[in-house]
């Protein structure tokens, strides 16, 4: 991963965090890691614990960003989510996996797309 795309990712996560706060989400954790997984942002939306995967793009790509979250990434998110819930002794709470896609144009302008309940444990 080049420095450029790393910076794009970090900036994208910052933008996503800001966006979620504007939407009334309470940020609980950022870059949460478990042994076999990680989640970019964990937030609370009313009754829900939301695990957010942030996808940053420097162009408007084809296909859906949700489709870009593939099987291995899903497993990693699910593992991290389970670890988070276990560590914090959270039970009997609705959970959700969201994907936030951030497109950054060459002039710095951003388009944010939020996919709620993007996938589920199968």
């Amino acid at each position, binding site marked *: 991963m080049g420095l450029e795309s790393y910076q794009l990712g970090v900036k994208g996560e910052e933008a996503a965090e800001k966006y979620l706060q504007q939407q009334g989400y309470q940020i609980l954790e950022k870059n949460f890691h478990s042994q076999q997984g990680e989640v970019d942002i964990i937030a609370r939306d009313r009754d*829900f614990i939301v695990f957010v995967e942030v996808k940053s793009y420097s162009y408007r790509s084809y296909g859906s960003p949700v489709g870009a979250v593939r099987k291995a990434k899903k497993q990693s998110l*699910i593992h991290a*989510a*389970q670890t988070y*819930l276990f560590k914090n002794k959270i*039970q*009997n*709470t*609705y*959970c*959700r*996996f969201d994907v936030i896609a951030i497109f950054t144009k060459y002039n710095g302008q951003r388009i944010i797309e939020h996919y709620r*309940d993007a996938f*589920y*444990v*199968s």
Partner: protein
Amino acid sequence: MLVKIKSAAVLGLEAYEIEVEVDACKRLPGQSIVGLPDAAVKESRDRVRAAIENSGFQFPPGYFTINLAPADTKKEGPLYDLPIALGMLLVSDQISNKKMNGSVVLGELSLDGSVRPVNGVLSIALSLSGSKRRILVPRENADEAALVKNIQVIPISSLKEAADYLAGKIKIGLHKVDLKALFQTDPEYGIDFVDVKGQGHVKRALEIAAAGSHNLLMVGPPGSGKTMLARRIPSILPTLSLDEALEVTKLYSVTGQLNGKGSLITARPFRSPHHTTSDIGIIGGGRIPRPGEVSLAHLGVLFLDEFPEFERNVLEVLRQPLEDGKVTISRAHSSLTYPAQFMLIAAMNPCPCGRLYDALQACTCTPLQIQRYWKKLSEPLLDRIDIQLEVPRLKPEEISAMPAGESSSGIRNRIIAARKRQMERFSGSGVFCNARMRPKQIKEFCELDREAENVLKSAIVHLKLSARAYDKVLKVSRTIADLEGEATIQAKHVAEATQYRSLDRKGG
């Protein structure tokens, strides 16, 4: 939170009740379906999700466990989509349950939330017969379900409609069909014996075969009208009674072949499988055994064109259903019995090139080829075919003549009368037609007068009839006598019956 909805599963021709249990709990989102679902049931979660969202509801959050109880029988097909979707809506309190109490729900969901037809609805409805219970079925299957008395059939066309109905928001009238109207009109076959040119003796033989439910083999060159004649047999068979029609419809319902044929099959089935059909295709089978062609021809006609071209094992598997009128198929999963009372009509050429015994063209086959061709038909199989006859090529003047035969309905009236006589004769013995007479009954009912006995004796001597052929001749003569309304078998009846042993005479 737990919700239970009644549904049903079909095994063979019988249905049994199952319970769809939907449990929701608050944790990572997802769902699992348990209770031995097959692929179509497992896929239902994607259909259910789309259908719920496209019906204006919210797909509920949380983890869902869906159990199809009893958990030890295999569940197949998409008919649990609707109960699962309703269960999810109920468990997430998106709809209220005012009218469910014990209703049976079935239906496949389309992604837009509309309900699609499913297989086996008649079997399921029959299993509830007389219980006065309510059953929610796809609208396309409503006619089928309504054939059954004393159940309440609610036709459903979409998930939204089902939800509104259960919540008491809308009313849906009970679906009814007029059984009498279905039976008032004679089934439309579209073909009639009037169209057949010439071949008077074949028509006569087919009439006898239909009257006594005898199996029949036609031997003739290509183009002599064997297929045309065979296709017209259902039009001279008596119409199905309600019970018979239900039995046939059930078979077509579970195999999903009812679509577009109306709710009830009142016409006798006519099946003509191609000669490449496998033994499983003929007899039925599969992991969960499905009915084969012999069962789909139940109470109708199974027509096997190019008889010796069938695989040998395919022909041999016919023997048992010809004898018993049913097939029992055992597989690791289950052993199922399907009815198979059919009339076998077979057609074949006299030799591979088809021109043997033809007055106009010479046969090009070698004797070995002809021998091989006939060897395909085993003795025990031919044993079960009562009437064998030759169908010669039409004469030029017959081809150019206008068809002027008797209409099917005229022939049918005689057959109905002859069958009635047989029913009275055999009442209470479990035998319904002359073809199925047992040796004891042959002795009892096939009494010959002196003259007839003499004819038969000379036939045995001159035509070298075997003991087996002797019984066949008696059975066929009994049917001929029945057609004429005679109590005893006379010489002319026997004389005609011996005509139908052409293969014995050829020594083939």
